[in-house]
């Protein structure tokens, strides 16, 4: 209830203090609901998106040959095999290239790097690289891999560009995982007289593996879904053969984009069906990484 100070001569009764607590608490309830709605809108759109794509793409996805044939100029015919193979190859190369370099860089920064002005620069540099837009990486890839190294608009150029794009995320998450390894583990190892690298290889890395794999999952999933830098490097929108390392190439997001840019209505369904394939591929990659992560956790 409102508290009043009516007995006090110093207070004018028109300006008496009221704490108004009920009104304030009910305003609090209103905002709690508003915050919850703000949180749920994102999830609602996510559900809507999944539903819409399922509705548009499922029947086309189930068309015989959609996964195994090459693209056709007609909306309801042909498939997306070159794009699937392209995306899988890209993901494999990104894992082979970006993961060792990224984990290596993280190990260097956490275990070897002294505190000096130039290591601070490397750290700031990595956090800045994480914010460079994908399409700008495309310009880098075009310059270095297509022209300087002479690969041309080939799958290897796209894969190496995606690897550079993935590096900052892998480095940052791996560093966090390595930093979380307790010092007592290193002390115990050093106490037995082993060298620095033996300690890292036999104790630090196995301990940090689950965290490192989390970073790998995130970054490879991003690489599989990224299209902007591949457009610049020279991915094509129509391919009738399976891409090889040094050939022109397609990837699933490029296939989606190319279907979307055609006017005939049927291509929208093919686009949705390709999205389903891409999301499944990302889920499979996540699944593999989670499986590996759990195996390592148990065997430790």
């Amino acid at each position, binding site marked *: 209830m409102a508290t009043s100070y009516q007995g006090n001569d110093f207070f004018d009764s028109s300006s008496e203090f009221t704490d108004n*607590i009920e009104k*304030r*608490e009910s*305003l*609090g309830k209103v*905002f*709690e609901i508003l*915050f919850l*709605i*703000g*949180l749920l809108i*994102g*999830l609602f759109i*996510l559900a*809507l*998106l999944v539903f*819409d*794509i399922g509705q*548009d793409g499922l029947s086309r996805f189930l068309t015989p040959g959609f996964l195994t044939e090459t693209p056709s100029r007609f909306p309801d015919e042909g498939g997306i095999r070159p794009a699937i193979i392209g995306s899988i190859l890209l993901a494999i190369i990104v894992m082979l290239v970006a993961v*060792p*370099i990224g*984990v*290596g*860089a993280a*190990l*260097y*920064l956490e275990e*070897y790097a002294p*505190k000096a002005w130039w290591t601070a620069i490397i750290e*700031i*540099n*990595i*956090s800045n*690289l994480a*914010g*460079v*837009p*994908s*399409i*700008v990486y495309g*310009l*880098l890839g075009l*310059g*270095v891999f297509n*022209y300087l190294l002479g690969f041309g608009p080939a799958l290897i150029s796209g894969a190496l560009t995606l690897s*550079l794009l993935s*590096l900052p995320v892998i480095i940052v998450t791996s560093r966090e995982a390595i930093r979380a390894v307790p010092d007592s583990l290193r002390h115990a190892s050093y106490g037995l007289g082993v*060298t*620095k*690298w033996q300690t890292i290889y036999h104790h630090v890395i196995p301990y940090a593996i689950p965290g490192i794999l989390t970073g790998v999952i995130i970054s490879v999933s991003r690489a599989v*879904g*990224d*299209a902007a830098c591949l457009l*610049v490097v020279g991915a094509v929108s129509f391919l009738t053969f399976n891409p090889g390392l040094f050939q022109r190439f397609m990837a699933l997001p490029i296939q*989606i*984009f190319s279907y*979307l840019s055609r006017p005939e209505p049927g291509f929208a369904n093919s686009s949705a069906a390709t*999205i389903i394939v*891409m999301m499944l591929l*990302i889920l499979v990659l996540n699944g593999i990484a989670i499986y590996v992560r759990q195996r390592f956790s148990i065997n430790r």
Partner: protein
Amino acid sequence: MSAINNQNGFQEDSRRSLDKKPSEDITEKIIAAILFCCGLVSVLTTFGIVIIIFQVTFEFFQEVPLSDFFLDTKWTPLFAERHFGIWPLISGTFLTTITAMAVAIPLGLSSAIYLSEYAQPKVAAILRPAVELLAGIPTVVYGYFALLFVTPFLRNFLPLEIFNAMSAGLMMGVMITPTVGSISLDAIQAVPNSLREGAYALGITKLESIFKVLLPAALSGITASIILGISRAVGETMTVVIAAGQQPKLTVNLMESVETMTAYMAQISGGDSPRGSLNFKTLYAVGAVLFLLTLALNIVSYWVSHRFKEKYD
């Protein structure tokens, strides 16, 4: 603190109790060197980006004067009558970015506040990754949804063009919500409990403590998250190239088709611009503007979050 110089010339800081001197063993030295090279790749990447972009951009400005680029108000590099005014692309970028932030800031902040202050820990443990799924969805998918779901839906109420800044911006906002939300959440959770308790001791309500104590205390982290979100929106490509169209014009009308810097880059690289042609060089000139803009935003965001980080102590 004394620093020890070992034979590699690296300075070892004795504050790090775990710094073991690399052994004399040659394998150990080789491994240290290999790991150092891995760290170097990120530096080389930055140098590569800067050198390649600015080299071609320099060539571009030898053909097109700076005044044309920054003072002309038309962008028609592919037409017979060529104009190279960057402003239509910048206005398109900002139009979609502002729309995106109008979605991402309220949604991101309310997610962060709800997860930090209201949700039960068990519920938050489920809801947080669920919201973060939004960041993991490839951006072509948002483009698809903007073009084939959001635009047709909004056209029931508004006279939108088929390609328009509004749908692209709205979906980009949903995409960026987890970026704003996650970093803001960390910032809000970093506010010490003593501040919350002090606020309650003064007799204010939970909502008042959020607006008058927590959010001001977490302001640096929240600001950093918003700037980072803007940077993501400026650099985002696939959603805008699919849903916002490819018509560079100086407009503030969300219902019209616009072209962003990234959409122009995607358009020109999808075509066949031979290396060394002026079209090819415009790709790099626009890329340079985009790079500098996002770099500036990222540096400001990094600076804001680190500058004010330890003010509770």
